[in-house]
């Protein structure tokens, strides 16, 4: 059995588990069993992705799908990488769900769709013809949408599901048209046929790329197609949110890479420009929106948008270098993008798991009603903190490594021959730097307000530490984050066959470099050694602690907070999340949203309290989606008048149609 057939069987088994879950969910407590099965199958799939270390692609054809083409499946280096990312996330999410799912009130609305969702994502990665790809793609959306609608009594969730599925279908239609263009009018829908075909006219690849960007971008959450994401991701149960944010967006990235780097053929340099521009805008808008959110899961979803933007900037760089035949820089950017894909899937899952644990313990997603959880949930707090450090791109964790590599790629931009790119790439670099800094601020705020300080509500005060399964899953993720941060050379070497296959070059083999440093281009240019830095920091911190103990006293006294001598015991005097974000909102926020402060000051003599509020409106929503919605409503209203015509009115319509067609025939030559 080849890894591919094993993978296909496992996917089939996942679908079977979905069916089994649908049958069992009504009965008793089936959730542990189902999640165990999912976890095991994900591990098998992970194995199938990791075991073959050859560059030769495996293919299989099943007599399904489009009849005269069949369903093609292919496991090459790229899909293997993404398969590993997806199934690692899937396995850990299943582990987490063994504990988390026990709190679920309506397991029958989650259990059948969870394995189906996993199966859908895996199928996208393996599909090797346009039809199977799109079926899997849409199936993935559909099953995740069912999960978004799991808690359907909440009108917000229903709205989220609606917007999600609309955007998903929009994306699918865009991809469908892209594939239509690539396949041509004879319908060569298999990817191998598309690879061989030449598109001819110069505008066709560009159009196909634009459509792919729309299609994959809407799934990945590129601005301005991102609006569904912060609605849908938080609406799902947390382990699903983790999968959607951490993993499904990566599947979208895979879709884009597959088309742009593989199917479209040799790139033109200007392809990279929309990617760089949109990616840069996405990072900044995403993180700015995250910074002002008070809903913890929404905040995480916006931060996903930011990270997707980072990945697309890196992909844009890779395209720019590839178009100019610069294999090594292209490989560097490509590697950085894929590494960030992997890293983000780890820490974003961990963050969502943490948010889920908090949600379970307190029933709250609003950080303004949390606080002080580090005392009641110390383990969760520690793990969440680790993920915050990782996502803020701080050394020595993994987030830094991939961002560092991207910066290294950005620094190679002067060697690009095109002036437009020379100027655009540093600008994108500024956006990346800005978003990295904002990201740190955003997660200081998230962690600081939710976990530190004093509890702002009763539920936050009475929170209990989460269960061991969840903790095990989260610890595993943090360990992986740390490992990936300390020993990135192994990962880079894992990615390099994919880089070789898709951009025609690869970064120097990192495994041979002493001290396990990473050297993307040459040592004289730059190098980084996460392990040494980590050891170094540990050493310094412990040394200082030791010296301090040696020189000073051990005495320690607990007392009330100092607070400049005016401590106020009420927790409302703490800095809130919105007050924390206010300076950033003032300084930078107006690019992303319109914020209107309003002060309700009672007249003298009135005893009611003065109220200060902020209304924040998303510019993208105001300028793009509201007009669309309004025009659809307008069209519906206008056309709807025809529903209330008299029979005579309808006859008039027929009459007019007949006369005008006769006129056409009369003047027909």
């Amino acid at each position, binding site marked *: 059995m080849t890894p591919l057939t094993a993978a296909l069987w496992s996917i089939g088994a996942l679908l079977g588990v979905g069916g089994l879950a649908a049958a069992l969910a009504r009965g008793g407590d089936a959730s542990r069993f189902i999640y165990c099965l999912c976890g095991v199958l994900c591990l098998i799939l992970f194995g199938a992705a990791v075991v073959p270390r050859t560059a030769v692609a495996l293919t299989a054809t099943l*007599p*399904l*799908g*489009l*009849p*005269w083409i069949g369903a093609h499946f292919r496991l090459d280096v790229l899909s293997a990488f993404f398969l590993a990312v997806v199934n690692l996330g899937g396995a850990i999410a299943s582990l987490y769900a063994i504990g988390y799912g026990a709190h679920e009130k309506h397991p029958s609305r989650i259990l059948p769709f969870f394995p189906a969702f996993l199966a859908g994502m895996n199928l996208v990665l393996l599909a090797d013809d*346009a*039809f199977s790809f*799109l*079926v*899997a793609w*849409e*199936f993935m959306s*559909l099953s995740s949408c069912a999960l978004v*609608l799991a808690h*359907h*009594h909440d*009108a917000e969730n*229903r709205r989220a*599901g*609606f917007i999600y*599925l*609309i955007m998903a*279908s*929009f994306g699918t*239609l865009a991809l*469908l*048209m892209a*594939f*239509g*263009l690539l396949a*041509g*009018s*004879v*319908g060569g*829908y298999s990817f191998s046929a598309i690879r061989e075909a030449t598109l001819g006219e110069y505008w066709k690849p560009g*159009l196909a790329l634009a459509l792919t960007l729309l299609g994959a971008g809407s799934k990945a959450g590129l601005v301005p197609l991102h609006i569904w994401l912060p609605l849908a991701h938080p609406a799902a149960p947390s382990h699903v949110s983790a999968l959607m944010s951490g993993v499904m967006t990566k599947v979208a990235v895979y879709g884009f890479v597959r088309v742009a780097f593989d199917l479209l053929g040799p790139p033109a340099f200007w392809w990279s420009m929309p990617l760089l521009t949109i990616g840069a805008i996405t990072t900044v808008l995403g993180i700015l929106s995250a910074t002002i959110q008070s809903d913890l899961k929404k905040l995480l979803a916006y931060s996903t948008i930011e990270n997707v933007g980072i990945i697309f900037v890196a992909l844009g760089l890779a395209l720019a270098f590839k178009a100019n035949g610069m294999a090594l820089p292209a490989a560097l950017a490509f590697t950085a993008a894929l590494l960030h894909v992997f890293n983000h899937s780890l820490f974003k899952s961990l963050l969502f798991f943490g948010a889920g644990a908090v949600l379970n313990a307190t029933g709250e997603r609003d950080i303004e009603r949390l606080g002080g959880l580090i005392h009641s949930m110390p383990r969760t707090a520690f793990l969440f903190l680790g993920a915050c450090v990782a996502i803020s791109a701080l050394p020595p964790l993994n987030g830094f490594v991939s961002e560092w590599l991207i910066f290294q790629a950005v620094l190679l931009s002067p060697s690009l021959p095109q002036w437009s790119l020379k100027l655009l790439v540093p600008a994108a670099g500024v956006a990346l730097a800005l978003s990295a800094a904002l990201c740190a601020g955003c997660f200081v705020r998230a962690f600081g307000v939710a976990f530190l300080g004093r509890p702002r509500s009763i539920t936050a005060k009475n929170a209990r530490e989460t269960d061991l399964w969840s903790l095990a899953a989260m610890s595993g993720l943090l360990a992986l984050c740390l490992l990936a941060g300390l020993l990135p050379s192994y990962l880079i070497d894992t990615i390099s066959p994919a880089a070789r296959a898709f951009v025609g070059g690869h970064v120097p083999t990192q495994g041979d470099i002493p001290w396990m440093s990473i050297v993307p281009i040459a040592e004289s240019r730059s190098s980084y050694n996460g392990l040494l830095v980590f050891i170094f920091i540990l050493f310094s911190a412990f040394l200082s602690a030791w010296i301090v103990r040696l020189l000073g006293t051990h005495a320690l006294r607990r007392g009330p907070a100092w607070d400049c001598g005016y401590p106020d015991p009420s927790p409302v005097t703490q800095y809130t999340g919105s007050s924390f974000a206010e300076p950033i909102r003032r300084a930078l926020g107006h690019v992303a949203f319109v914020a209107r402060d309003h002060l309700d000051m009672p007249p003298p003599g009135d005893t009611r309290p003065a109220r200060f509020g902020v209304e924040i409106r998303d510019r993208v929503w105001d300028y793009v989606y509201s007009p669309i919605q309004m025009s*659809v*409503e307008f*069209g*519906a*209203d206008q*056309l*709807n008048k*025809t*529903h209330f*015509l008299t*029979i005579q009115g*309808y*006859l008039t*319509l*027929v009459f*007019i*149609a*007949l006369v005008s*067609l*006769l006129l*056409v*025939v009369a003047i*027909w030559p």
Partner: protein
Amino acid sequence: MNVPALAPVEALLVIPALSALILAFLSGYRLTSYINVISSGMTLVLALGLLFDRPEPGSYLFVDDLNIVFIVLSTFIGFTTSVFSASYIGHEIETGKLKPAYVRFYHAMYQSMMFAMNLALLANNIGLMWVAIEVATLTTVLMVGIYRTPEALEAAWKYFILGSVGIALALFGTILVYMSAEPVLGEGYNAMVWTALMLHGAEFSPRLLNVAFVFLMLGYGTKVGLVPMHAWLPDAHAEGPTPISAVLSGLLLNVALYAVLRFKMLLAANAAAIAPGPLMITLGLASLIFAGFMLYRRDDIKRLFAYSSIEHMGIITFAFGMGGPLANFAGLLHMTMHSLTKSAIFFAVGHIAQVKGTQKIADIRGLTESHPVLGWGLVAGVMAIAGLPPFGVFMSEFLVVSSTFARQPLLAIPLAFGLLVAFGALLLRVIGLAFGEPSDSIGEVEASVVPLFFHLALVLMMGLWLESHIVAWFQNVAGLLG
């Protein structure tokens, strides 16, 4: 004329006609519905038999690659609907909505309608086909008005008047086709026979054919439900008994479409005639986009799906208008899938309206919680009809959109736009219907969910795996359609 060989073909007409006669004289709900089911089942078996042993074309009736698709499909849906109808009508009688006296009439009309549709499909004569479609219209008009409520009567009336005008226009077109064929094929019967017309299509006067096609397209297009001749369709679907809605959407529209296709083939064979494609594409797109917008303001659940039928008929007409092997294949597939799915949806909707005691969308909520089987059945059906994988409609929409985009990118944009608009409306409604806090139910119903899930299973299966014979068959037909 080889009469014995034609026997199964004639039996396809005789059985429904005989049953209609018998049913007209029998009363008692159980017995009549059994006879109805059995007769429909026999018709289906005979139709399936035609797949294997196809008789030579006769002068009145014939079976070829094109109409066998329609025959099998319509007898199949006729059969499953009769099963559904048994439980549905039973409940209607129990609740007193339908008087037992009308049941006799209902079943007789059901079989007469089956007879008329089979005749329309089998007819080897454009005049005969026209008569059959007219009879089918009349029978369905009677069934639409069977509840005798003001709304039902009004719907029947509207259907009747608009249908009559449509049928009149179609007749004029038919006469014109005869006129154009007459110089070539000679006076008399031969100039109305399909098999002869198809052979000599290239020799007919193209200008006359052009005018004829305008009339035929508008005339039969009325029955297909194409905008702007669609107005009868939503009311007729909404006010009649739900099995009739299922049959209307699943069968009658197809039969009319079949007529359009036949004439399209005739025109396509004539190089000098106006290309029928642009007209069909225009009407198809207009129907798609118009119906898409109309879906947003519907508050009656059956009207909602009636407009969705208009939308899908638009897509199918568009696909056939595009022509070419891919688009024609997609059109055929889409037609099949739409018939199966839409009738399944009506099966679900019928029982839902019964348990909830209303057809108002606003009063139906949380179905997946209160009635999981019906609710999820409806969700699956709507997902299927909205063109989401892994259901079969997705495959046809995939082929239509992608092949259109490869050939005429500018046409694909309104197509995709219309699909998206319609999808949005359907999704909005189904989320409201299926999710949220459940609304009150007025009672339970012994729902026969077998036809519903059987249809959905077929649609699902065909979305993932098309049997190679069906493929070859469809491809052959697609080739015929040009």
